[in-house]
């Protein structure tokens, strides 16, 4: 739990929410965005992604918006809810704050803006 009362997020959860922050995505789109955001460090498998999505839907942070069938495969699109947007922005602010402090403490040239 952060100081501002927001629950800490695990990395895959945070990256999924950030990916959805750019607009609705289907499962494959989310995995691609997460891989890009993490510079290839986080590669979500189907099990991990849908386990996380199921939990995020239950928590009211994400909602399913529509489905379509492409090449015989079902694709469901997901989007952030208002609560999900608030949560991911709070988490991002917290991470930025930690990164700024860390950059200053470590004397990283240029620090962070």
């Amino acid at each position, binding site marked *: 739990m952060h100081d501002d009362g927001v629950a800490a997020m695990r990395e895959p959860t945070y990256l999924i929410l950030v990916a959805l922050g750019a607009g609705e995505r289907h*499962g*494959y789109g989310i*995995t691609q965005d997460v891989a890009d955001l993490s510079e290839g460090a986080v590669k979500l*498998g*189907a*099990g*991990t*992604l*849908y*386990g996380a*999505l*199921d*939990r995020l839907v*239950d928590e009211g942070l994400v909602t399913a918006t529509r489905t379509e069938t492409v090449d015989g*495969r*079902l*694709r*469901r699109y997901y989007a952030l809810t208002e609560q999900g947007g608030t949560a991911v922005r709070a988490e991002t602010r917290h991470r930025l704050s930690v990164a700024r402090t860390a950059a200053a403490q470590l004397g990283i040239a240029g620090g962070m803006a």
Partner: protein
Amino acid sequence: MTRTVEQQARRYLRIFPRWMRAERGEEAVGLTLDQLSPDATRLPAGTRLDLIRAGLHARRRGTPPPSVWSRLTYQTVFRSDPVVPSAWRPWLASVITTRWITAAYAVHRTLPFLVAPIMQLVLPGTGGRSLAAFFAIGYVAAVVGLWAFGGERWRQRVLLANGFGADGRPLPPDQVGRSWSRQTMPNTWTVPALVGFVLAGGGYAPVAWFQADRVERANVLLVATVLALVAWGLATGRRRLDRLGPAPAVSPASDGRVRNLLSLASGAGLGLIWSWLVAFAAEFIGLPLVVVWLPPAAALAVVVLVRRTEGRIGRRVGEWDLHPAWAPQLVQRPVDQLPAPPSGPSTPALG
């Protein structure tokens, strides 16, 4: 990519709980295949591990805590339909809609009847194996009867009580608050079941009792109390039946000789179990002979009452109509005067 890969993915998805497969299984298969190269012939080890790990995690997350299990167990055995907190309703719906759950229900609800044959085997001097086998036959008949004639109705009642339709899909919010689980037991099979109960229950116990030479002096007060309760129940039921109108609330079940025969057999099985229990208890507390006959006699009186009502209103009536909580929809009165559904955190959400 071969079809084998898709089959592998579907096989690994079985690790996930049923409710989650129903909700997201096709998506997960699609994504798994999207992530593979076109010439893949088998699932990579990393993908398999991911599915196993996530499936086990989902099972752990989707399993209700002991408090929910204990509530389900208690409510299922003691004749009310289980209602679980809203968080566990998708899980409950997925479990209730499985094929063999009604058989499990029949076994579960009749578990108390297993006490007698087990006691026969365990306790010395209480009858031995032959009587235990006799009881086991009655128990199996009761289980089969409950499974065949009560299982599907129980499934639909539980789904409705938890805010789902008969197909396991959530009901529209405006229907949940007004829905009321209703048991129907058309006389197409209750009459043969009751006849079986009367014949077996009323016939076996006195014979066994006389043979055991254990008839004792009648307890007048006990008999009078039981008789008064039966008379009060019948009078109350008759007043209720008098208020029924001719409009059918549900379509009656279809007639069938096999169904009637099975009803007769299951009723006889229950009657045998009951009568033996009374005879067994009488050895210790001296119940009078007339008490043995009271339930079958009351059952016959109920049949007569129901038959008369059916003749008056021109449609079938279930014995459950005798009690207001069992069949409120059959009473001719406005919807807003129906008994309120259960309240509190277990009530399905209204919006």
